[in-house]
């Protein structure tokens, strides 16, 4: 595996506001890289810069070491699937998919074969004579994908490819899409704001926020050790406690709920420093007796069944709400003690 696309220190302003402030990452051949971020995080702009549709103010886009600046969009051979699909309304399915091949002056006979191949890949060959306006959202999505694939681009970029579809279709298609994209054996950049989709589809993720990359790595890296408090929030780790560092090695933090041992911290800490602890619910355990440290006690506030267990919310001294998954259905109002092992306690400044 080697990096084929390198994005180096990209800066970009938009409407007087700084949108990208020094973004760098690499994509390896055959890899699905997911750009994850909320709307307005600049992820689509980043795609457009790579595609050549927009110019960066500073920084470089390198393809196999070659800078792409000055190479116009249509000569880059980077496929881009747009968020709203942007199917040509005046062309039918076949001609939409054939468009990129026609631009390359390929013979009609070969175009026929390659369009069929692309349409077969997304299982849409039967629709080739349809008008694109007659297609459903899911069908349009597949035609747009076939159109981007037909010219055999050296890089494929997908901008919220499932964004316009409803939840159930999304889950089904994201698995199919991952299989299909892996078969292509070209680097893929996949932009989405949907975490579930990002974790399902990607080999590796780049998380963008406020113009910076917050973290890049595999889903496992990111989910087990979010690199910042913002990211922990973003990923939905809402159990948080404020406290002060009591000891640095091993890390012990003093909170209103007593002492907490933590095995993970993002920066060099000093004793007495104010910190925020994130308690990950996965490995939490209920205990009957009081324990020394890493324990929360409170009253059950609400219980909802979530298929693999009961999401239980407890209120701690009626000021803080902590939630965790429990195999049992607890009665609302009953008292509980929950222990979070030190590998589930993350410490942030």
């Amino acid at each position, binding site marked *: 595996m080697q990096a084929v696309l390198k994005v180096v220190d990209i800066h*970009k*302003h*938009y409407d007087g506001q700084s949108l990208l402030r020094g973004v760098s990452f690499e994509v390896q051949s055959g890899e699905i890289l997911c750009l994850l971020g909320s709307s307005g995080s600049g992820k689509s702009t980043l795609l*457009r810069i790579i*595609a*050549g*549709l*927009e*110019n*960066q*103010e*500073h*920084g*470089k*886009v390198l393809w196999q070491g070659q*800078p792409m*600046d000055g190479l*116009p*969009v*249509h*000569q*880059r*051979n*980077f*496929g*881009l699937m*747009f*968020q*709203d699909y*942007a199917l*040509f*309304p*005046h*062309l039918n399915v076949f001609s939409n998919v054939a*468009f*990129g091949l*026609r*631009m*390359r002056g390929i013979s009609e006979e070969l175009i026929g074969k390659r369009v069929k191949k692309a349409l077969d890949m997304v299982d849409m060959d039967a629709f080739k004579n349809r008008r694109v306006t007659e297609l459903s959202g899911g069908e349009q999505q597949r035609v747009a994908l076939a*159109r*981007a694939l037909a*010219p055999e681009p050296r890089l494929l970029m997908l901008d919220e490819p499932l964004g316009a579809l409803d939840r159930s279709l999304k889950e089904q298609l994201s698995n199919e899409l991952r299989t299909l994209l892996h078969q292509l054996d070209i680097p893929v950049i996949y932009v989405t704001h949907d975490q579930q989709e990002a974790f399902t589809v990607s080999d590796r993720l780049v998380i963008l926020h406020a113009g910076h990359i917050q973290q890049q790595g595999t889903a496992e890296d990111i989910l087990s050790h979010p690199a910042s408090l913002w990211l922990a929030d973003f990923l939905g780790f809402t159990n948080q406690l404020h406290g002060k560092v009591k000891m640095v090695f091993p890390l012990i933090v003093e909170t209103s709920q007593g002492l907490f041992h933590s095995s993970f911290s993002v920066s060099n800490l000093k004793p007495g420093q104010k910190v925020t602890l994130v308690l990950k619910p996965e490995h939490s355990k209920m205990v009957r007796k009081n324990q020394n440290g890493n324990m929360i006690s409170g009253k059950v506030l609400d219980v909802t069944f979530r298929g693999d267990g009961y999401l239980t919310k407890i209120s701690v001294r009626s000021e803080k709400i902590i939630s965790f998954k429990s195999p049992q259905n607890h009665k609302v109002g009953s008292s509980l003690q929950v222990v979070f092992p030190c590998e589930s306690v993350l410490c942030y400044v």
Partner: protein
Amino acid sequence: MPGSCSGGKQFWNKGLFGLRKSSWLLWLIPLLFLGFFFLYPLTAIFGLALRTNELGWTSFPWQRVGSILGFTIFQAVLSTLLTVLVGLPAAFLFGRYDFKGKNLIRLLSTLPFILPTVVVAAGFNAIIGPNGLLNLLLMQIWHLDQPPIQILNTLAAILLAHVFYNTAVVIRTVGSSLEQLDPRLEQASRTLGASPWRSFWEVTLPLLRNSLASAALVVFLFDFTSFGVILLMGGPQFATLEVEIYYQTMQLLNLPLAAWLSIIQLGCTLILTVIILHRGGGLPIPVAPRLSHSTNRQIQSWKERLFLVMMMVLLIALLVMPLVALVLRSLTKLDAVRSGNNTIFGFTLQYYRELFINRQQSLFYVPPVEALRNSFFYALAASGLALFFGSLATYALLQKSRWNKFFDPLIMLPMGTSAVTLGLGFIIVFATLPNARDFYPVLIPIAHSLVALPFVVRVLQPALASIPSSLKQVAATLGASPWQVWFSVELPIASRAAAVAGLFAFTISLGEFGATAFLSRPDIPTLPVAIFRFLSQPGSLNYGQALAMATILMALCASVMLVIDRINTINS
């Protein structure tokens, strides 16, 4: 700095041929055209007026000019009021109710909008003129020697023609905002205790005030600059500024006075146009998403039925009868021999056959049917020119440069300039050239394309602007060069709008009378000029031929309009 680029401009601002810095080239060509054939003649009018010494301020015919301006405004105000009076209930009928034949009536009521003035004049002549069908019928029934209806060459005839002409404007403008009006607003007022009348008066009408005012301003502008209608239906005793400019130029050869009249006229129309363009768009009407027919009511109560019947009678009498009469009268033979007071009617194609014959006493050196051929070629050339310069100007406007503030009104300027003023300007500039007469056939399509240019741009602009930029961008990522993007994405998508724009320009040219009246040579007449000349000559054969030609012109315009309507239906 490596990889630094100038500004944050998007790739697609680079323009038609991908030449960002040369978008001024797009402007250059239409601006040169406008400059030479529009601004130059206008400045020539100013130049002539200012240069003339004989016309000192003391000898300037203040009183005559004042009374002409007064009459121009008077008839325009009166016409506008009458038009709104007819148009508002009609707009209400179309905007609110569903009934049988609605589509046909809607189409028929938009027909006058594109009909040439000479056709309208001929139509009214064919029904209420001294030799018109109505007079002939009444004379037959009551055994009269004189036609009982004598309103041709009166103010009433002018008003009637203006109402005929512009009702479509009110129906269109007010009707479309009525359709966009959220019907729940009126329903809410009803639930709060308002009677239907009060909820119309206090909710609907105030919300329509803006579009009504816009429509009234447009109608006023059209009435103010009306030329053919006044000339053909008002007769010699009525002169608006337009008609007076024509008389002073073509009959009295008093170009300096004509120039001064033109300047007054231009001042008025430019102010009006600026007001209209400034008001355009942005109507503060609450728009609610709705199903296309959900708000339209069926005719139910007897009151509604009465309203429908009355409006239908009025609209058909006003808008349809003159055109039907035109066709019928052009096919009606009057026997010269009268037995007593009875005239014998009959069917004839004689007037049409005569069009192919060059009679000795004919006004032309060529058979009248030649006029049809001339008009056709002029219209072809004019629509080609208007499309060419119009699409360049539209592309230039879409570049979103800061110069647009200046260029956009410039492109719209011909709309605020009367065709007669344009004709005068052409005469002043080009009549002094050696062999000037040889140029005139070229000048006519140029003048027509100038008149059509604003319409072409206004049709093309939204169509091109509505193409999502993602379509052009995705084409580029698929390997299309900027030229290929234009050819295989923009052109096919905008082709229908281009067809509509071209057809509009074609019809405008077919019926253009104001500028043509100044520039057309007797041996190369256009259809409207030929109709005008035949109508002003005595004799039933001339009259019949005028009506026959007017019928042909109407049929041409109507079929073009049907095609446009068809294209628009497919589009939506």
